[in-house]
C-alpha cells in the first residue's frame, strides 16, 4: 500500500509537469490519509486552481489541501545588490 501511494505521488507530479493547464515541475505533494497536501508556487490563480482539477482527474477519491501560493508579481524590481 505504501508503494502504491508513492507511485500515485509521482503520477500526480508528472501530470503537474505535462498538463497544459499547469506545466509545473516544482510542486510538492504529500498524502496524509485521503488528503493530498500540495505546496509550491505558480504564476496565477488559474494555475493554482488547476492543481485541484488535475488531482481530481487523476485520483477522484482524494480530497485536496491546496497550499500552493501565487508567485509575487509586484510591479517593481527586487532591489540592488552591489557585487565587488
Amino acid at each position, binding site marked *: 500500500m505504501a508503494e502504491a501511494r508513492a507511485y500515485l505521488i509521482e503520477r500526480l507530479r508528472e501530470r503537474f509537469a505535462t498538463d497544459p493547464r499547469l506545466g509545473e515541475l516544482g510542486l510538492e505533494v504529500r498524502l496524509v490519509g485521503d488528503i493530498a497536501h500540495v505546496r509550491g*508556487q505558480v504564476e496565477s490563480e488559474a494555475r493554482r486552481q488547476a492543481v485541484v482539477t488535475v488531482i481530481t482527474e487523476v485520483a477522484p477519491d482524494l480530497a485536496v489541501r491546496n497550499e500552493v501560493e501565487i508567485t509575487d508579481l509586484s510591479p517593481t524590481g527586487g532591489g*540592488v545588490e552591489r557585487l565587488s
Partner: protein
Amino acid sequence: MIRIAAVGDIHLGTDCAGVVRERYAKIADEADVLLLAGDLTRLGTLEEAAVVAAELGNLAVPTVAVLGNHDHHGGVDKEIAWLLEEGGIILLEGEAMVLEVGEQRLGIAGVKGFGGGFAGACATEFGEELMKQFVRATRHSAERLADALARLEADYRVALTHFSPTDTTLTGEPVGIHAFLGSYVLGEAVDGELAGVRADLAIHGHAHRGTERGVTAGGVVVRNVAQPVIHHPYRIYCLGGSEMECATGGGEHRGVA
C-alpha cells in the same frame, strides 16, 4: 559601473499576454541590461514564445536570454529561438556578446546547460549509451560556455545559464534531484578550469525552491534568479560601483558589440 537586471523561470503562458510588460517599464532607470535565465515559457510552444517576445522584446535596455528545459518541452526550441530574436531578444546558446555601458564593456556568455550533479554525487560517462549521452551533453554545454567566456574581451564577464553551476544555490531543493538541477562541470567552466578564463558573476535559474546566493568551488559569485526565489520581476546586481552609485546611478547604454 554596470547594473545587471536578471530573472529566470518566468514561465509565461498565453494567459500572460498584455500583463507582464508594464513590470519592466522603468527598467532603464535601474539597469543597463536584462538577463533572462531560461524557462521563459511553460510548455515550450510557439504561442507562448510569441507572448514572451511581445512582453519582453525591445525593452528600453537590451534583453539577453538563454532557453530552459521548459522551452524545449514542445520540441520547437529552434523556432522559439527564432521568434524571440525576431522580437528583439538576444538569445545565447554557446555564443558571447559584449555590451558597451559608458566606458566599460560587459561580456555575457550563455548556454542552457544541463544536469549531472555535484561533487560526490555525479553522473559518470560510463555504461549505457544513453547515460554517456546525458553526461556528454552537459560536458559539451560546459565547454561551449567556457569557450564563449574565453572569447570575451570585456571588463566584466557574466556566465548566463539555466541549469546551476553550483549546489550552493540549491539549498532548499531535495538533495535527490540536485543532479537534475545542474552540474559541477558548468562550475568548472565558470571558474575558468576548462578554457582559462573565469567569469566575474554567474546567473542561473531552474531551482525554484533553492536560494539566491551561492558561490562556485573556485569562488565566483553565483546568483539563482528563479522568479519563485527572488519574488520580484527582477533583481539587480551592480558591478564596479560604490554603494551610493549602485543605489542611485544609472549606466549609460551605448550599444551591443
